[in-house]
């Protein structure tokens, strides 16, 4: 598992953001979004901090964090591979792509490689159904894929990851 190091200034920035959310009704969700964005995940210590700032019991915050798929308790890999398993992609063979990428990286979906370079996710529809099947690597979208094209795309990023 990847070790998470949270920097002082990240906490400070998050606290500032929470302060502005506090002025409006319903501050919890926007605060959690900011935490996820700034830190990459919302571990227990951050939940406790938010609990204090918003005066909401940490039990409730934990309930909300674990309810929504976009919030994670653990950090994700440097590169996030999302194979879309929306219906349009699924009927055009996205499952085979997901299986293949998984076997290439030796992980299942929602897992991260031991070196922390890649996280594999089976994503919900990303709204690029016209290009189905699609896969995303970080911000990049690869459309009209098949199994071999998806491996090519993965390899491109693998090389990039090594060069880093």
């Amino acid at each position, binding site marked *: 598992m990847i070790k998470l190091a949270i920097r002082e200034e990240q906490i400070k920035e998050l606290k500032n953001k929470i302060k502005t959310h506090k002025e409006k009704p319903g501050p919890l969700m926007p605060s959690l979004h900011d935490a996820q964005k700034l830190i990459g995940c919302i571990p227990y210590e951050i939940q406790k901090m938010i609990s204090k700032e918003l005066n909401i019991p940490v039990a409730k915050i934990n309930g909300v964090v674990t309810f929504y798929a976009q919030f994670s308790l653990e950090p994700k890999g440097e590169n996030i591979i999302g194979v879309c398993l929306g219906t349009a992609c699924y009927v055009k063979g996205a499952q085979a792509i997901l299986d293949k990428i998984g076997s290439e990286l030796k992980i299942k979906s929602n897992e991260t490689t031991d070196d922390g370079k890649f996280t594999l996710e089976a994503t919900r529809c990303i*709204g690029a159904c016209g290009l189905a099947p699609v896969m995303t690597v970080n911000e990049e979208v690869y459309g009209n894929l098949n199994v071999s094209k998806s491996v090519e795309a993965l390899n491109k990023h693998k090389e990039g990851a090594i060069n880093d």
Partner: protein
Amino acid sequence: MIRSSEELVKRYNETKGKILNRAGLETNGRKEVLVCGVAGCKSLKSDTLVERLREAISDNGLDIEVKETGCFGFCEKGPIVKVMPEDIFYSQVNPKDINEIVESHLVKGEVYKKKLYINPETKKAIETTKEIPFYKKQVKIALRNCGFINAESIDEYIGAGGYQALAKALEMTPQEVIEVIKESGLRGRGGGGFPTGIKWQFARNNESQTKYIICNADEGDPGAFMDRSILEGDPHSVIEAMAIGAYAIGANFGYVYVRAEYPQAVERLELAIEKAKREGLLGKDILATGFNFDLEIRLGAGAFVCGEETALIASIEGERGMPRTKPPFPASKGLWGAPTIINNVETFAVIPEIIKKGSEWFKGIGTKKSSGTKVFALVGKVKNTGLIEVPMGITLREIIYDIGGGMLKGRKFKAVLTGGPSGGCLTEEHLDEIVDFDRLKELGSMMGSGGMIVLDDKNCMVDIAKFYIDFMVEESCGKCVYCRIGTKRIYEILERITSGKGKPSDIDELEQLSQGVIDGSICGLGQTAPNPVLTTLRYFKDEYIEHIEDKRCSASVCKDLINEYIITDKCTGCTICAKNCPVECISGERKEKHTINNEECILCGDCFSRCPFDAIVTR
């Protein structure tokens, strides 16, 4: 700042010239280039095209504007570039085509034929958008500005007649506004199909100091992207409609609840809200009428159930997104206990047009009980995938064959899925059925938010049912026992069937469990979750029986029922399978029969679905 309706008219007069020229209604002698800058085209790097176009235009000493617009709809042929006002449609444009397009079309005035759309039927190139069969049967109301205006410019929206519906509504009484919507017969486009005007009336009748209006943009239906396209292509239409709705019900504050998975939609909407505020079209004393209305965005966080009204409200309040029992309906007790109206993006997008053109005009389109148009994401195994808007009452055949261009690779049509995970499948015998809210429901499916996924004979219906139920197992919030556990048990039975361990009693069990989930759930998610199972059982029972009794999947999708792939004598040696095999286990000379090395084969099925000659079979 636009402080009054007179100032709005003045701004319209200043900005309309450009729009009328673009539409070919009035000419100012200037050309413009439009490039789709969203969704599919963006994924295919249409932003590079914009840069290259601008460079090439200035290199040639021309003064022609290049605009990034919203979705043109015909995603299959992206990235798309259009030259206006002549409306020439260039498809699948590469950065390297740009110089030629600019030199030929923009410098010499000759259409660059190589990148025109080719009609697959006649093999002839088609120049203008309106002549392309994909667009011929479409009627654009919700998508009227998508792919036509620059979504980031409020002036272009105003030039296209934007915010005039708000000005008109503010001169009417709130009750008059509601009457127009009621008379128009507009029904909610998010899936339920509840009459919008009646919903608004409930909220209006509930007296309260505070009321809210919410736009539901938590588009979770996998395979549908109309809300995304509207927000990215015409965000002001949603803002304008929300202001109209707020005025009608007596609200002064609204939220747009958007999926976080749509960052570009969020960005464009944020920008549009900011611009509307700067122009005074949101905020205090709008158009000097004393009406105040403000708007904020709230992000979803990846929970399908939050598309349900009460769950969405809980999510904005900062709770787990779990639905509650209704009544009380949100129109009487919604966000923070106040009367709240929640409408879908597409519903909002048509409202300004209804206010402007009147309820009679809207009623003139569509069927008696489902007026107007509906946007569908036409995807799956059809030739022309993309976003379409058609009048209600059109037949499935017209959608799939006339607009969709028929089946991909000439394969056989098997079924079409509508309504997403809450809907169901329709088969060949339904192709001539009309599409409207009530007819789809009678057939066991539903309109849903508008995903329309076409399947061919290489899709397995049991597998599709399993796919949807798997989705529901994950997305059930867990509040109702039947939905939480029942969907899981249904999934397990389907898993058993697709892996060759099905029992004859499984079919009865599926039917019973499905009914239990429908009866035992409090919200729409659970009540509709078994629909894909029930409709596939209704129309494709033989496929279930085949899996259970013969341990066979004739579509060759269920891997556990496949021992190996074999290439038959039908093989022509075209090499497509060998070239694409991810483990390179197919060998053979060109124009000679190929063979599969079954020791190395991973049974991915890529060759099977790719073979144009049906030469690959399973055993």
